[in-house]
């Protein structure tokens, strides 16, 4: 039996985290859940612990990339075979975890992707261009069709966990773009499976055009940096 760890980076998610953990426990019994509390000001850590998750708490806010790297480090130190990373806001449906773990049999990194047939999720304008740009470029690099490169819903196994625990990029968008480029460059096999995303249980997604333009610009920069980095 493979030991599986789900990594949930959480920042001020006390209201939604218990429901997410409960759903995970029902959907995939026997799997360990690690909540990486990125120095929340609310009771995220306590709520998660009460719900039965393992909790590590960062002494100051490192951002989602930093929290994920800590999650991978935890997975390495506690010798897990498979690490699944999800968002803690309930967007990612835990029903797909089993499929993702199955897909790991012939890949090192499995990305749960929107726009791949399943579910409805619409974006438009500069944000859509940015996502198109990233998916085109990264599909070419990874030599496989990747429709949703910014998805934070992923599973990886074995040596790649070790690799991410040392090299997981902590910069904005680096945690999505850089991770794919690095994994490919080091010879790992990347694959995607279609998933549907749910609306977030808390918070609102940003729709301002200025923010979308900045997003486009930053994705271009992230891509450029990922390509020229050693």
């Amino acid at each position, binding site marked *: 039996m493979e030991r599986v760890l789900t990594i949930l980076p959480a920042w001020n998610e006390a209201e939604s985290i218990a429901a997410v953990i409960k759903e995970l426990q029902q959907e995939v019994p026997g799997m360990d859940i690690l909540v*990486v509390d990125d120095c929340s000001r609310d009771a995220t850590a306590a709520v998660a612990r009460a719900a039965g998750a*393992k*909790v*590590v*708490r*960062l*002494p*100051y806010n*490192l951002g989602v990339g*930093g929290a994920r*790297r*800590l999650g991978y*480090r*935890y997975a390495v*130190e506690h010798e897990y075979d498979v690490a699944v990373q999800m968002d803690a806001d309930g967007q990612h449906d835990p029903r797909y975890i089993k499929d993702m773990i199955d897909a790991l049999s012939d890949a090192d990194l499995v990305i749960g992707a929107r726009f791949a047939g399943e579910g409805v999720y619409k974006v438009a304008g500069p944000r859509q261009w940015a996502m198109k740009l990233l998916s085109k470029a990264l599909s070419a690099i990874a030599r496989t069709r990747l429709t949703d490169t910014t998805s934070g819903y992923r599973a990886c196994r074995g040596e790649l966990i070790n690799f991410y625990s040392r090299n997981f990029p*902590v910069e904005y968008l680096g945690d999505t773009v850089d991770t794919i480029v690095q994994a490919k460059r080091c010879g790992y096999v990347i694959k995607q499976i279609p998933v549907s995303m749910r609306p977030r249980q808390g918070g609102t997604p940003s729709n301002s055009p200025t923010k979308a333009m900045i997003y486009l610009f930053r994705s271009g920069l992230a891509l450029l940096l990922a390509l020229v980095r050693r």
Partner: protein
Amino acid sequence: MRLTFVTATTGLVMLVVIFELLRRRQLREKYGALWLLVAVAVLPLAFIPTLLDGLSSFLGIASGLSLFLFASVVFLLLVTVHLSWESSRLEEETRSLSEEIALLRADVAELQELREKVKTP
């Protein structure tokens, strides 16, 4: 003459300040050494501002002062780039430390729980 007085005083004050910072161990030696070298190199210029004129005419620059300003801008740029690099490195180091602390605290909490269980069977 008055200009020379101003530049010379500035150079001397800089030298004293750096030396004092080094003496009080407020400045790491590598930075202290760098700035001391700069101060020592600039000091003769402060007393005799025309010292660079020969070199600048050789390089095709109109006056020694322009050469000096150009060189100092380049130098300061390099120093700021170096500081950015240094702070990126420090950030990476503190990040690793904070990860280490988070993992250790999780381990400690687990051990404490175990101990409680042993105490109260």
